[in-house]
């Protein structure tokens, strides 16, 4: 029997939490949820409690020196997981500090034993657990208490959460004699708060290591697992290609052997205003004509602007949005959590069966990531997830793209993109024009030429160029790649 299958997992019901836990929390175990004031630890525990109470489970919340019950209930009434009708019926709140103060750890343990016996809850939450240490027991007494508590909740099959306002994986009994230690924290990046959750340990669970960002929303704690961690754990490889798809511009399809590989990721790289977004819209419109479900994720132009832009070249998107064959997600590139965007994107892809995706303005997105050091690995993971799901993807990126501008950047661009198409301005006889060329194309032959690109009311078309053309070296990545040398 699979080892993991022997342990019954409790699904927490918290978005993203089961994913980082590897399925859920082993039932009947003792967990420490820690974090400084305002980190969201009580919210997380009680959210799990209420979600399970709604399913018929009994939940006991025992407070030591912590928020009063009335204040706690008032606080939770702001969340959609709260149901007042459950309080007193399936969610019971009790105070335990009196027993601790009067009779010490033995008294508290006796109280907990009595509650578990009387009410038989499936979940116990002890808030203000720091009071136990603060009551001044010896290290040995505290260790014995923790050991006894762990045995008690295991024998009563009561998944128990201890809430403590501390941080760090310290060598105290509260950390070492529990089955799991989960920490919530809040830090600032400049003026911007970033909430993070980290699992130090959960025995019996195939949990992800490292930190994951989360938000506290109207429905409670929502966790956005690090996509690199998810991708590394699943280690899924994209399936073999199953043919090519048209990019929506017949004259360009001809130049690139019929289109791009289905499920591949293509970068449309080019100067501002050269036509990257329009080309992306052609790609999407082709998908809609082929009865594919499509998604546009934008960080630059708003949905009305994209729709208007498409209409100007004869591409009608409004009816597809109404029919739900097309969804446009737009994010202001301000205080974004890239994991939240990726999570939402992959959710929509799954729910709607999306097979064509346009990500418009990826450079703006990368620039505002809360963890800039992750940008590369995040994008590699995201693109792999898209390939694994068989989503044919176009991404627009604005020059300059290659960071320092020399060839070494290809070491990760190869992992990111299967195809790279360069859109530039050219100049001939003092007239500027648009040109398009292929820098990289997977599983297809292509002509190593600059082709002329035209934009009219009928959309984009491409004329094969047989002439030697002068490049605008200020904007040409080709020129920079040829001329620039690494130091």
């Amino acid at each position, binding site marked *: 029997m699979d080892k993991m299958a022997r342990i019954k997992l409790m699904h927490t019901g918290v978005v993203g939490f089961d994913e980082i836990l590897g399925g859920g929390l082993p039932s009947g175990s003792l967990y420490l949820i820690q974090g400084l004031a305002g980190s969201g630890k009580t919210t997380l525990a009680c959210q799990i409690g209420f979600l399970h109470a709604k399913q018929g489970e009994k939940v006991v919340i*025992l*407070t030591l*020196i912590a928020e*009063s*019950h*009335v204040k706690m*209930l008032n606080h939770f009434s702001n969340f959609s997981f709260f149901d*007042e*009708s459950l*309080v*007193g*019926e399936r969610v*019971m*709140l*009790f*105070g*335990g*500090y*009196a*027993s601790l*103060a*009067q009779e010490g750890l033995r008294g508290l343990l006796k*109280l907990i034993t*009595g*509650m578990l016996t*009387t009410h038989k809850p499936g979940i116990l939450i002890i808030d203000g657990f720091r009071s136990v240490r603060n009551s001044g027991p010896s290290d040995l007494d505290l260790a014995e208490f923790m050991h006894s508590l762990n045995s008690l909740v295991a024998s009563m099959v009561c998944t128990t959460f201890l809430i403590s306002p501390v941080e760090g994986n310290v060598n105290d009994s509260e950390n070492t004699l529990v089955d799991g230690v989960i920490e919530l924290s809040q830090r600032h990046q400049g003026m911007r708060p970033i909430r993070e959750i980290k699992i130090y340990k959960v025995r019996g669970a195939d949990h992800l290591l490292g930190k994951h960002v989360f938000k506290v929303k109207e429905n409670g704690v929502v966790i956005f697992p690090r996509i690199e961690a998810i991708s590394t754990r699943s280690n899924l490889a994209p399936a073999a290609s199953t043919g090519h798809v048209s990019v929506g511009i017949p004259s360009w399809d001809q130049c690139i052997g019929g289109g791009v590989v289905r499920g591949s990721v293509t970068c449309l790289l080019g100067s501002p205003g050269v036509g990257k977004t329009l080309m992306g819209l052609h790609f999407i419109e082709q998908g809609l004509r082929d009865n594919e479900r499509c998604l546009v994720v934008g960080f630059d132009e708003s949905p009305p602007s994209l729709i208007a832009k498409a209409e100007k070249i004869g591409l009608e998107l409004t009816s597809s949005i109404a029919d739900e064959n097309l969804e446009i997600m737009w994010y202001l590139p301000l205080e974004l959590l890239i994991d939240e965007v990726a999570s939402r994107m992959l959710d929509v892809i799954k729910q709607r069966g999306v097979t064509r995706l346009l990500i418009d303005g990826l450079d703006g997105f990368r620039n505002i990531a809360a963890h800039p050091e992750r940008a590369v690995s995040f994008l590699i993971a995201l693109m792999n997830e898209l390939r694994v799901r068989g989503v044919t993807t176009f991404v627009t990126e604005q020059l300059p793209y290659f960071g320092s501008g020399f060839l070494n950047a290809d070491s990760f661009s190869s992992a990111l993109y299967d195809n790279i198409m360069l859109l530039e301005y050219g100049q001939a006889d003092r007239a500027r024009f648009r040109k398009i060329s292929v820098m990289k194309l997977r599983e297809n032959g292509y002509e190593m030429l600059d082709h002329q690109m035209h934009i009219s009311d009928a959309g984009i078309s491409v004329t094969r160029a047989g002439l030697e053309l002068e490049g605008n070296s200020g904007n040409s990545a080709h020129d920079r790649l040829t001329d620039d040398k690494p130091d």
Partner: protein
Amino acid sequence: MKSILIVDDEVDITDTFSMLFELHDFKVVLASQGRQALEVLQDFTPDVILSDCMMPLMDGLELCTQVKSAPSTAHIPFILMSASPKQHDLSSVRYDLFLQKPFVFNDLLDKVTALLNKH
């Protein structure tokens, strides 16, 4: 001097009310849950009992039933309090007054005084 037995598992409630009632010349005795309150009542007869509903081991409704069933304590005015009144079936409980938390202490004091005057 009047006396009051306050029964609540929340220490902040008992500590706060204890100080306030003492300032108003009450003798205050505390218990953290129903069973402890019954032990107290074996040796002490307060003029009024103020009890929370939801408590571990023995809740306020059970405590009230037992207090009102015993000849030695049946006469004591019994005030129940709760943050979630809808969750309690009070139909068979012979309480004298029910208060919903949170409430202002002065209102509580007025109601306790009125109850004591009535009895």
